């Protein structure tokens, strides 16, 4: 498969992020991480990278939405995704403002949580409208009842996983608002994974074509995001903050992947 300049750009950042963040939990005491890549340095590398790719993701999702003519069934999809990714961008920008500009620990909850929480319903709407668009135009992607069955099965599995994931969070001795927010992120991740799973199944039927690269990148991004949220909840609960660089890596990969999908969609529309 021929690599495009966008592939090289996104791939280089993804590989560089892996080289920087992945060894940190294992070699935390090495001079590399005590003298060169210290926590403040990692923060200064991670935060702008996340912002860059969220910005690119939102920008190219929005430009793609504008390029789809009014009445095209995926125009709302890319609009919802653009606004949802913008919500994540504003959330991350708020976190970066506290960490990099004010130089203080991020309060919890903060304005960032408002942006993050508002983004989820829009992203879910984006994925649901994408599924409806695929159905509407008559691609042989299986029957509607198959998709409902998959949604039901995934819903049951994720609900069971949710009980397991949320139990320690709900039992933590924190304020009701903190408890709500700590539980809301993994719960919303599990909800968003249902349409992501259905779309992933649909997208795989297009393997070998250029369109599959759009959705596999976007959906892989949301899978990384869910893994990041779950790891964050667990590492925080276990007091293993030193593993936080793995969480950062998941979010960096998530945003790079989402950006890659949005850029690819824009390239498909304009090339």
């Amino acid at each position, binding site marked *: 498969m021929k690599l495009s300049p966008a592939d090289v750009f996104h791939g280089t950042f993804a590989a560089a992020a892996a080289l920087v963040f992945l060894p940190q939990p294992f070699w935390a005491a090495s001079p590399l991480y005590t003298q060169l890549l210290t926590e403040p340095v990692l923060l200064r590398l991670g935060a702008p990278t996340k912002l860059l790719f969220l910005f690119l993701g939102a920008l190219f999702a929005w430009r793609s939405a504008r390029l789809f003519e009014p009445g*095209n069934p995926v125009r709302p999809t890319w609009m919802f995704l653009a606004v949802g990714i913008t919500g994540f961008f504003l959330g991350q920008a708020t976190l970066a403002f506290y960490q990099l500009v004010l130089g203080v620990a991020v309060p919890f909850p903060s304005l960032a949580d408002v942006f993050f929480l508002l983004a989820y319903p829009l992203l879910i709407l984006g994925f649901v409208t994408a599924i409806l668009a695929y159905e509407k135009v008559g*691609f042989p992607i299986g029957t509607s009842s198959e998709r409902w069955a998959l949604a039901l099965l995934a819903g049951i599995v994720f609900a069971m996983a949710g009980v397991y994931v949320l139990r320690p969070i709900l039992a933590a001795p924190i304020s009701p608002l903190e408890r709500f927010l700590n539980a809301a992120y993994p719960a919303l991740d599990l909800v968003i994974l249902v349409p992501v799973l259905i779309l992933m199944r649909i997208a795989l039927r297009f393997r070998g074509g250029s369109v599959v690269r759009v959705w596999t990148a976007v959906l892989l991004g949301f899978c990384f995001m869910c893994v990041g949220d779950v790891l964050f909840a667990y590492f925080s609960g276990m007091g293993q903050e030193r593993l936080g660089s793995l969480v950062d890596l998941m979010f960096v990969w998530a945003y790079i992947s989402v950006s890659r999908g949005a850029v690819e969609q824009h390239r498909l529309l304009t090339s």
Partner: protein
Amino acid sequence: MSEPQSLETIVAVVAPYLGETMARASVSAHCRKLGINHGQASGPQIEALIEKLALGLNIFLGRTKTGAVVDEIRKALASRGSAA
């Protein structure tokens, strides 16, 4: 050009976008709905098939690029037709 070859030509043009498997499956599914049996299609049926495929391509490529792909299909069909 025989009619099954027309369908092969259409598959060849849309496969780089949809992938070989989905391109074939889409053409087959639309053929069934349009009453095209064993690849024996009339001119209007081929046109209807192209329109159905364009509806699908439109959600990935947008109207302008889909129009270009449809033109490419027509040119490929015409050039094969004149070569046969």
